[in-house]
């Protein structure tokens, strides 16, 4: 099982991502900060928190380029914070002090009057070497303290990433937890049922294609052209690779897609269908299922040595494996007990124990990046649920319910889940739309994530390195 085959099964145009490293330089802005003791915090572990009123002012730039970038950056930051459900950006029409006048110290009274508890101000400048310099400060309006101040240098085209990085810095300073805005989503795009569009053919009746976008839906692009049915993409820890399943040449197998080169490579030389792949936390292995002679078992492959190890040995369906973040355990679903349930085993396949005991079937377990919870899909009474439980199976909580919802994926900070929701299909083929949704771990703040077409099988990336 060490044979390595290369395929370039599909033509596609793909601009590689701008190199992520060395574009950003960060400088701390100390300002006239006294020993700042933050007064405002948000406890994101609580249920339905009252969103924190925050004023995000346009970042001020002198040139037209810098000024436009400053407005765009402020807009993206405000939208990110609003979508988190933890912040309520104040309508800029209510602002009393102008952004331009903020170059001196803020007039905190002007911001208290409009009930802002936090204030974000910034400046943009195109410096002599053509790079864009972006600085921002976050103020606690009541204590009149600067909570954080940072400056970034980047190529002007990269302004959107800077906005996400600043959003993460604000989120972290106020909640105490890492943010999740500088991330991407890979998913399967589908043609609406009534469309006769690109890539729809009898081998791929719903025109499924891999697509990737920023977490807010921007920078959307397709990775495959729809010739071949593709399913269940998942990121490597570095975001440089995606593992997924493809029906290339009608031979369903697990593949790896390299984002930089666009190369698609079939993984290994297995005698049966391989599916349900995920990277190990260090990115050096892939865990997946292989089905042969009516039996699905879980295997792990070392990507460097190509050595394959079989982890489960049971006549039941064993699939949907997911590593714990410490890589010492694996959660998967199996019907070995008579119905589909969640099991945990160690990374060598030993000490298998069932952890789900509620009514119904449990599926698609995914270990939280924090390690404290496992998200799953549950099927009960003809309904689908998204829920979480602790790794020992206790503390089950259901977050969402519908006709068909499936496939949760975690934000890198373990506070938000994205899943997909599919509607009922009518006899005439109408309906049945499938879309991506996010929901907080608290069960609140459920929102649709916009995609150009129908969408399923989302996978949320780690923070971009």
């Amino acid at each position, binding site marked *: 099982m060490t044979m390595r085959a290369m395929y370039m099964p599909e033509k596609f145009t793909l601009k590689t991502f701008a190199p992520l490293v060395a574009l950003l330089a960060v400088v701390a802005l100390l300002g006239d900060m006294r020993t700042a003791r933050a007064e405002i915090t948000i406890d994101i572990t609580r249920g339905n928190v009252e969103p924190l009123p925050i004023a995000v002012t346009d970042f001020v730039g002198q040139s037209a380029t810098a000024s436009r970038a400053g407005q765009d950056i402020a807009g993206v930051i405000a939208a990110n914070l609003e979508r988190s459900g933890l912040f309520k950006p104040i309508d800029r029409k209510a602002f009393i002090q102008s952004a331009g006048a903020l170059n001196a110290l803020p007039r905190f009274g002007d911001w208290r009057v409009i009930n802002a508890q936090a204030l974000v101000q910034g400046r943009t400048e195109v410096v002599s070497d053509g790079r864009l310099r972006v600085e921002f400060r976050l103020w606690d309006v009541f204590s009149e303290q600067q909570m954080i101040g940072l400056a970034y240098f980047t190529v002007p085209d990269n302004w959107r990433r800077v906005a996400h990085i600043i959003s993460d810095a604000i989120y972290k300073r106020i909640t105490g937890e890492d943010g999740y805005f500088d991330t991407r989503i890979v998913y399967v795009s589908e043609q609406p049922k009534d469309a006769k569009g690109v890539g729809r053919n*009898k*081998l791929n*009746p*719903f025109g*499924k294609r891999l697509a990737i976008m920023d977490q807010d839906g921007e920078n959307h692009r397709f990775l495959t052209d729809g010739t071949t*049915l593709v*399913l*269940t993409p998942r990121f490597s820890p570095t975001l440089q690779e995606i593992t997924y*399943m493809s029906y290339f040449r*009608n031979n*369903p197998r697990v593949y790896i897609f390299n984002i930089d080169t666009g190369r698609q490579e079939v993984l290994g030389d297995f005698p*049966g*269908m391989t*599916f*349900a792949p995920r990277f190990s936390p260090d990115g050096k292995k892939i865990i997946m*299922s292989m*089905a042969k*002679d*009516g*039996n*699905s078992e879980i295997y792990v492959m070392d990507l460097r040595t190509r050595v394959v190890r079989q982890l489960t040995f049971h006549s039941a*369906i064993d*699939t*949907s494996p997911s590593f714990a973040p410490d890589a010492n355990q694996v959660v998967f*679903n199996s019907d070995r007990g008579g119905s*589909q349930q969640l099991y945990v085993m160690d990374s060598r396949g030993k000490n298998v124990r069932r952890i789900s005991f509620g009514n119904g079937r449990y*599926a*698609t377990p995914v270990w939280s990046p924090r390690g404290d919870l496992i998200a799953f*899909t549950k*099927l009960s009474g*003809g309904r689908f649920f998204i829920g979480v439980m602790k790794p020992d199976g206790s503390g089950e909580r259901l977050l969402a319910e519908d*006709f*068909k919802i*499936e*496939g949760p994926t975690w934000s890198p900070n373990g506070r938000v889940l994205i899943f997909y929701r*599919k509607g*009922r*299909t*009518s*006899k*005439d*083929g109408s*309906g*049945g739309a499938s879309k991506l949704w996010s929901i907080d771990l608290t069960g609140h703040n459920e929102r649709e994530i916009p995609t150009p077409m129908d969408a*399923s*099988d989302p996978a949320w990336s780690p923070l971009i390195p």
Partner: protein
Amino acid sequence: MRFKVIGMVAALALAVTACESTSESGAGASGSGGAGVTPLPAAEPLPLKDQFVVDVGDRVFFSFDRFDVEPDQKKVLDRQAAWLKKFSSVTVTVEGHADERGTREYNLALGERRANAVKEYLIYLGIDAKRLKTVSYGEERPVALGSDEAAWAQNRRAVTIVTGPGS
């Protein structure tokens, strides 16, 4: 008995023409001309792969989350085996499918189980395993549209496709 089979094929033809173009409907050509109830003239014999669909019956159905071939479905496979013995050079692929009432990855495994169950039964009836391939499409290729039990029952299926050297 013969009548009953044709009736079933006719019902399938309606179901197939009403929905997505999939590999089995393409191979079956069972909707051609809408001639579901009128057998085509013997003067123009159908290609082998279409004869198989019309004369034998290409698919069996399964209960929810099950992969055992039920007694009434075995009759279809008995006819398939007899036909495969008659046309001994024909090879087939058994496609396994699931309804939408499961999770995607589990349904891939379930479709593989169903395809394999048909393969095993055909081997039991004396067909050489070398002539039989399987592939699972999970819930990815529904043949009947609609989110109700009638559609789901049509989609929980294993379809035997003549792949070579037929016709």
